[in-house]
């Protein structure tokens, strides 16, 4: 469960202060499917980064499964992140010198899971995402939709409880976009908490809960 209360985040650009998040309070239950929408610059990505422990708020409290993650050290936050949170980015962020399989394997490798265990987990995911025949391709040999599926595979390989996707279909054509959306929703159906940032009204409407942001505030 995610509980945010009175989060503040501001950026200094020259001598101007931008309030990217302004008094944001929000509770997301385990297993929810939430779409975050709003105009460009409204603070959606900033919110996602803080939810994903990639960034810290200036003020306010963030409880993740009843742990106050604002108080944790960077190393502890890294540990929590690797265990509980999976990310999907708009621009995939795959490592180009690694194959699809190795990209999916990467989080497990980084957190020291033994090779045998990794192989089993990755096999399972390749099967699930219908990427078995693409396993040994490098990212530049894959289509956009396939790349995003690999990125999703990488996000869920550690079996996180939360999946954060920041405009996952933003770079995709409508067919692959629909595929990716369906995949994310099926993961949510299996129990993962899904938070999606999207500009696509149709996708937003499919979510059980919609959040709207404007100038750093939830409306």
């Amino acid at each position, binding site marked *: 469960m995610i509980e945010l209360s009175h989060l503040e985040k501001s950026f200094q650009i020259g001598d101007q202060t931008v309030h990217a998040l302004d008094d944001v309070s929000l509770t997301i239950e385990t297993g929810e499917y939430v779409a975050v929408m709003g105009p460009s610059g409204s603070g959606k990505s900033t919110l996602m980064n803080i939810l994903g422990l990639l960034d810290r708020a200036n003020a306010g409290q963030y409880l993740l499964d009843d742990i106050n993650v604002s108080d944790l050290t960077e190393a502890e936050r890294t540990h929590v992140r690797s265990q509980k949170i999976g990310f999907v980015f708009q621009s995939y962020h795959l490592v180009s010198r690694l194959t699809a399989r190795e990209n999916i394997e990467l989080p497990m490798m980084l957190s020291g899971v033994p090779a045998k265990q990794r192989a089993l987990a990755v096999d399972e995911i390749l099967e699930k995402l219908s990427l078995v025949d693409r396993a040994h391709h490098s990212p530049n040999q894959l289509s956009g939709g396939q790349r995003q599926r690999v990125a999703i595979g*990488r996000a869920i390989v550690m079996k996180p409880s939360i999946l954060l996707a920041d405009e996952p279909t933003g770079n995709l054509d409508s067919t692959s976009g629909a595929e990716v959306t369906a995949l994310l929703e099926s993961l949510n159906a299996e129990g993962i908490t899904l938070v999606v940032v999207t500009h696509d009204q149709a996708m937003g409407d499919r979510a059980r809960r919609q959040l709207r942001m404007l100038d750093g505030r939830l409306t």
Partner: protein
Amino acid sequence: MYWPDIVKFITLVLSRQRFRTIVLWVAIAIGVVAVNLLTALGEGAKSYVLSEFNVLGRNTLITLPGKKETKGGMPPLTGESPRPLTLKDAQAVSRLAGVKAVAPLVLGNIEVSYSGKLREVLMMGSSRSFFDIRHLDVGQGRLLPDLPFNKGESVCVIGNKLSRELFASKPALGEWVRAGDSRFRVIGILKEGGTSFGFDMNDVMIIPVVNAQSLFNKDGLFRMFTEVRSHQELNNIKAKIIALIKERHEGEEDVTVISQDAMLSSVQKILDTLTYAVTGIASISMLVAGILIMNMMIITVSQRTKEIGLLKALGATSATVRLLFLSEAGLIAVVAALSGLLVSHAVLLLANSYFDDIQFHSPWWAQLGSILLAVLLALLFAWLPAQRASSLAPVEALQGKQQKGQA
């Protein structure tokens, strides 16, 4: 993270950024090669020179005609001086208390011939004691007879190579060899041996000293070797020799007496300085390689900021990121240093097969030191960028920013 995974990860990085990898590799390898070859050169020169000087024992004094003056006068370069060192002087010295043996030496180049075969050789005129003092021995036959210095005999001991060249496979012992207008019977053949004092002992002919004097028609000795009974007496006897010759030469102090210790210590000092200087130069080249590594690493960090952010987002701790960068530098340093070592060994092997009488070996401390230095420098210079890389906040790194909002 497991070691095999780290190695796999960084080898992928290294193989992708091939240019950078090759530059680093070559720079480090050159550093290691420089250290090893230069110290091998220094050490080789040192042991060559020392072995040349070592043939004389610690108990031996060398007397040469002429006084080494610090101001004015001609140094005794040629061994010729207004007043020669004579056989009678040598006899007088041999009678001094504490002197074990004296060997006079007369030198000259001369053509020798045997049944039509002509060879130019180095002719040494000396005595039986010469063989003891210079540690020479015959492989066949016997040494020169133990005669008083002023008694001659038409016999000779010849070097190994000379024997082969004059007699081929025929037995040489008992044969007569012509030298100038005299003939000498071969009574011994020297064992195969190296050089001493720059003379190739395989290509010499040794005859009694008076025979050599009459052959070359000169009274003076080129050198006189004196072996003392005990090392403690060396300096004492050195003074006695100088005094005795001075007395015999109408009060003129016109000889120089040197000991091996004195020669060795000054030669060794020069050679040590040479080795250190050469090692210093080589170490500087290692430092340059180290700085290159640092620059490369800094560039790498900037290029790979996004990836660092990604790795952190995927659960890599700062320690893991640092470990990745350091082991990347460490791996390339180890591989490059070892290949540098391999190259130096190959070059030394080649050099050693080309030169017979001087052998180059890079000492163990240079080999170990150059590898440790390479790895240490690589780690040291990788540390700073690695530190920087790992301290980036994940979100900033992901956005490709560098160190923004850090302070």
